[in-house]
Structures are given as structure tokens and as C-alpha cells.
């Protein structure tokens, strides 16, 4: 193994292993404080610097929990499958950590690498992301099975069923963005969204983002979908028999998976690392990326403070009868309207560009006074230029300015653009309403024929 290769690998992986667990510690504190404030209490505020009275808003709480977890006794039930009981938390953590490297985080110390050893440059990074994030399902099943206890097996089976059925809408909603960008490479997806061209600002992107976020909540067993680890129903589900450090590993694994999934949501829909002032300080992209991740995590915590837990059958009906058809329909809608819109706007923008060249070519070499510019034509041309290099948010801005000046063609483009927006959202809303009635309809409990 050449030294260069080892150096590159270390530069690529060690920062992730350091940054995200420390962000995990911060998030546990943030979650407990936010949940407390939602319920009109104060939340941890006494554990500051150890052995002193300075409780700096409870920031020492994650450290205190960590130490507690290390010293707690690690009980393994007698009948349990000892090997798998140990392996399950590790398997829960490895994929969560692994998928972190598929997020297009351009750390500033990346330039010390000789060859760019970065996983998000992989050609099929997004597929690898979903493939490896599917492994946590296995870990949860292994935990449920290995603890040799009915409740955890029940929790394990429920978790597996939930995660498998929510993985499909998750992947399908990502297909929309991959279809637009035309590549699975995370870096290309990020570059396609520079300059506020985030996919969330397109109607199908917004719908896909909502579906992705809901499915991501279910994938990481969070807030309304946290049935597998429901304390009230099945005594903390699959990690009932876990205590001490193994429990902390599950906890860490779940949070890192939450980071990773919201990281992917940011990459696909919220323009990874794209924000203001990037030209002056390119390293800011990592900061914007992490700020957006924390935004999504704040919403997850907010949802956890608000929504009650879903029953198993509601959970399943929601996934199969609501999310899945909507995400497939969204792909169809995205394909139709984007390429239809693309053709329509491209035609008019070419017409705009053509309009300024046309007079010269007709009148041959004789140059005479510059062509009489139609009002607002300059802005329209700028918009068209922006549109050609796929910066449609900038293009729409210029078209808007041109339309203000009364430029006819940019008015038609804007009308077409907002028409697509209105039509897309209303069609999706009507379909969602319809599906909502279907998935809410009376579910006959199926009597099981086998295993009498």
C-alpha cells in the first residue's frame, strides 16, 4: 500500500469520523432542549463543566450520557445469541458511518490529497448510498432476533417491514432528481444546483422533497414512524435487551443515519453546499451544507414534539397506498412538465437570441444604426443566456425584469413557468387527496390462515 494512498484515505475518512460524532453529541443536547422547550420545560441545564457549578445550558449532558453509557452494566440475556447480540449494534453503526462519505462535502483540507480519493466522486454514488443504508434494516432485525425476547423480535420485524416498505418511495423520489441531472454522481448533482438553482424550487422537486423527507423519517425510525422503538407499546422494541455501551452504539447509529439521510436530502433537493458569499469564500460550502442538515434535523425534532405515533397498519397503508403511487406519479409529472417546459422555453429563448442577430444577417455587410431594441429586450436576452447554461432561477429573474418592461416573449415564458407550477401542484394535490381517501378507507384485518 503506497504511502500516498494511505494518506489520501485518511484525509478522506478521519474528518468524517471526528466531525459527525461530535455533531451527534450536539444534536442530542439540541433535541432534549428543543423538546423540553416545546413542552414548556427547561431541559437539561445543570451538567456543564464537571465538578463545578457552572451549568452552561446543559451542554455537558451528552458527555454525561456518554460516560454513563460506558459504565452501565452490559447485560446479555441468557438465551440470547451471544455473537449476534454483540454484532447487531456494530452492524447498525457501520453502514450509518459508511454512507456519510457519499455526501459531497468538499472539506478545505481536501487539497492536500494527491489523488481525489472521495467516495462522492463515484459514478454511482447515490445507488451506493441507498444500497448501504439498506443494511441498517439487517442490523435491526439481527438485534430483534438475537435478544431472544418476544417484544424485541416483534419490534425487529416491525422495523424491518417499515424500513423495507419506505425504502421504495425514498428511492423513487430520488429518481426525479437523478433524472433531471442525468447522473448518479453526487458531485454532479451538487454542481447542477449552484446559484440557487435548487431542485426544491421546481414543483416536482418540491413534491419529491416532501416525499423524500417523510420516507427519510420512516427510514430512521423517527417521530411519527418510531413504532419499532416505541416505549409505550413494545418496551423500546428491538433494543429492549441492550444496555450500556451497545445501547449507546444503537443511539449513535440512529443519529448518524439521521445526519446521512438529511445530508442526502440536502444534496438532492437543497443544493448541497450552495449559498450566498460562496464566491468570496469557497470553503463556506461545507458550512452551508451542515447548516442545511441542521435545519432538516430541527424540523425532525419539531415533528417529534408534535405528532403522535402511527399504528402499524396505518404506517403500512400510508407507505404502499399513498407514498408509492404519489412518487411514481411525480416522476411521470416531472418528466412531462420538465421536458415540455424545456422545449417551450428553449424555443422562445432561441427566438429572443435570434431576434437581435436577425437584422444584421439580412442587411449584409452594410452596417447601419443598431437595430431598434424592443423594450426589455436586453433583459430577455440575459435571461435566455442564463437559461441556456441551465441556471433557470437566474433566467427567470431576468425574464421577470424583462416582463416588467413589457417584453412579450418573456411574459409568455413566465406565464408558462407559473402555469407548470400551478398545474403540477394542483394535479399532485388532487391525486394526494384521492389517495388519502383510499388509504384511509376501512382496512379489513386479514385473518392469517397459516400457523394455526
Amino acid at each position, binding site marked *: 500500500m503506497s504511502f500516498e494512498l494511505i494518506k489520501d484515505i485518511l484525509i478522506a475518512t478521519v474528518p468524517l469520523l471526528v466531525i459527525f460524532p461530535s455533531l451527534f453529541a450536539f444534536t442530542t443536547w439540541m433535541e432534549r432542549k428543543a423538546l423540553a422547550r416545546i413542552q414548556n420545560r427547561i431541559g437539561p441545564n445543570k451538567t456543564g463543566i464537571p465538578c463545578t457549578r457552572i451549568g452552561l445550558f446543559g451542554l455537558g449532558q451528552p458527555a454525561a450520557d456518554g460516560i454513563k453509557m460506558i459504565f452501565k452494566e452490559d447485560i446479555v440475556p441468557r438465551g440470547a445469541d451471544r455473537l449476534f447480540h454483540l454484532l447487531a449494534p456494530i452492524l447498525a453503526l457501520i453502514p450509518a458511518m459508511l454512507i456519510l462519505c457519499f455526501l459531497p462535502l468538499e472539506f478545505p483540507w481536501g487539497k492536500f490529497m494527491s489523488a481525489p480519493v472521495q467516495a462522492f466522486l463515484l*459514478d454511482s454514488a447515490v445507488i*451506493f448510498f*441507498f*444500497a448501504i443504508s439498506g443494511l441498517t*434494516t*439487517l442490523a435491526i432485525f439481527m438485534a430483534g432476533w438475537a435478544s431472544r425476547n418476544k417484544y424485541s423480535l416483534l419490534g425487529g420485524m416491525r422495523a424491518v417491514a417499515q424500513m423495507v416498505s419506505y425504502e421504495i418511495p425514498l428511492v423513487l423520489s430520488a429518481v426525479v432528481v437523478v433524472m433531471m441531472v442525468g*447522473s448518479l454522481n453526487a458531485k454532479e448533482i451538487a454542481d447542477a444546483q449552484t446559484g440557487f438553482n435548487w431542485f426544491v424550487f421546481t414543483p416536482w422537486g418540491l413534491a419529491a422533497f416532501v416525499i423524500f423527507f417523510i420516507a427519510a423519517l420512516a427510514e430512521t425510525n423517527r417521530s411519527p414512524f418510531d413504532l419499532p422503538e416505541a416505549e409505550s407499546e413494545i418496551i423500546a422494541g428491538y433494543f429492549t435487551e441492550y444496555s450500556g455501551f451497545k445501547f449507546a452504539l444503537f443511539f449513535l447509529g440512529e443519529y448518524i443515519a439521521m445526519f446521512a439521510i438529511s445530508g442526502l436530502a440536502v444534496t438532492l433537493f437543497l443544493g448541497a453546499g450552495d449559498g450566498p458569499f460562496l464566491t468570496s469564500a469557497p470553503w463556506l460550502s461545507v458550512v452551508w451544507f451542515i447548516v442545511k442538515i441542521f435545519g432538516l434535523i430541527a424540523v425532525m425534532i419539531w415533528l417529534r414534539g408534535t405528532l403522535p405515533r402511527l399504528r402499524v397498519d396505518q404506517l403500512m397503508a400510508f407507505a404502499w397506498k399513498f407514498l408509492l403511487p404519489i412518487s411514481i406519479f411525480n416522476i411521470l409529472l416531472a418528466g412531462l412538465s420538465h421536458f415540455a417546459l424545456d422545449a417551450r422555453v428553449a424555443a422562445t429563448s432561441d427566438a429572443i437570441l435570434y431576434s437581435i442577430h436577425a437584422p444584421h444577417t439580412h442587411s449584409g455587410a452594410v452596417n447601419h444604426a443598431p437595430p431598434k431594441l424592443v423594450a426589455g429586450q436586453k433583459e430577455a436576452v440575459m435571461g435566455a443566456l442564463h437559461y441556456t447554461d441551465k441556471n433557470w432561477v437566474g433566467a427567470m429573474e431576468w425574464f421577470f425584469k424583462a416582463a416588467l418592461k413589457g417584453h412579450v416573449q418573456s411574459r409568455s415564458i413566465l406565464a408558462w413557468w407559473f402555469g407548470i407550477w400551478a398545474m403540477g401542484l394542483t394535479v399532485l394535490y388532487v391525486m394526494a387527496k384521492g389517495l388519502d381517501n383510499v388509504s384511509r378507507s376501512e382496512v379489513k384485518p386479514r385473518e392469517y390462515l397459516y400457523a394455526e
Partner: protein
Amino acid sequence: MTQEITFWVLAVIAVLGALVAVRRRNLIHGVFALMIFFAALSGLFLLLLAEFIAAVQILVYIGAVGILLLFAIMLTERVTGDDARDITSRGSFWGWAAALAVLVFLLLPAIQSADLAQTAQPHIPSVKALGHKLMEPYVVTLEVLALLLTAALIGAVAASQGGEKTKEDSDDA
């Protein structure tokens, strides 16, 4: 040099994973060994620069087929194989003989005799090319595949649901 080591490590893991999956009494251990086997194979695909296939392998085999097998084991009997019944079928000796015979007399001579290419051409894995290929010459195959998968989906649901109540069940209920 690193490729040699990784190849041999993955090969050993794959063979061990397959053997444990086949010989293990406890089915759950068998399934997890099988998944290690799939993971090792995915590593081999990466080594052979078939990047997309490695990703699909993990997604389909470990993510879906593995869990399907787990569900199937959960729904059938004798999961931990701790009862004394023999796990091998009656004529298991002939099974061994047949497998070894196929290996020794059929496959290995075939590999020795064939003149195999020694050098690997440089190749940049790109999913775009795979996508274009899937669209131009193989688009019909893709549609047939989609049809097949839907049929399999519906078939699996129909078969495992047991359809309307059979005679025996109506007696029991």
C-alpha cells in the same frame, strides 16, 4: 500489489461465507453468512471495475433478497435447527460426489484448456454508458424485464396469500 491482496481476501471470505451458509444448522446464521458472501462478491465486482453492478448487488441481494429469506425463515419451521433431525437429505453422499465430480472433471479442465486473455484493458466505469446501452440495443430486454418483475411480484403475493380458503383450512377454522 494491493489488488492481489484484496482479491485473495475477498475470495477467501466469499468461499467461507458460501460454505457456512450451506452447512450451518441454524438458518439465521446461514442467512447472515450468505449476506457476507454477497458483500464479498460485491467487493470483487468493484475490483473488476463493474461499479454499478457492485452497487446493485448490495442493493438487491443484501437489501432485498437477504431480508426476504429472513422473512421466509421466520414464517417456516425449525429455524434454529436445534432439534436432532438430520439436516442433510438421505442421499447426501451422492450429492457430495456429484458436486466434486462437476468441479474436478468438468469445470477445472475447462478452465485449464481454454486460452484466456491475460491482460485487462483499461476501462473507465461510467453509468452513463451503461444507461445509453440499456436504451439503444437493449430497450426491449428492459421492458420484458420490467414485465417479468411485475409478474413475479403479483405471483409471489398471490402464492403466499393462499388465495381463498382451501378445503383443509375450512375444516380447521
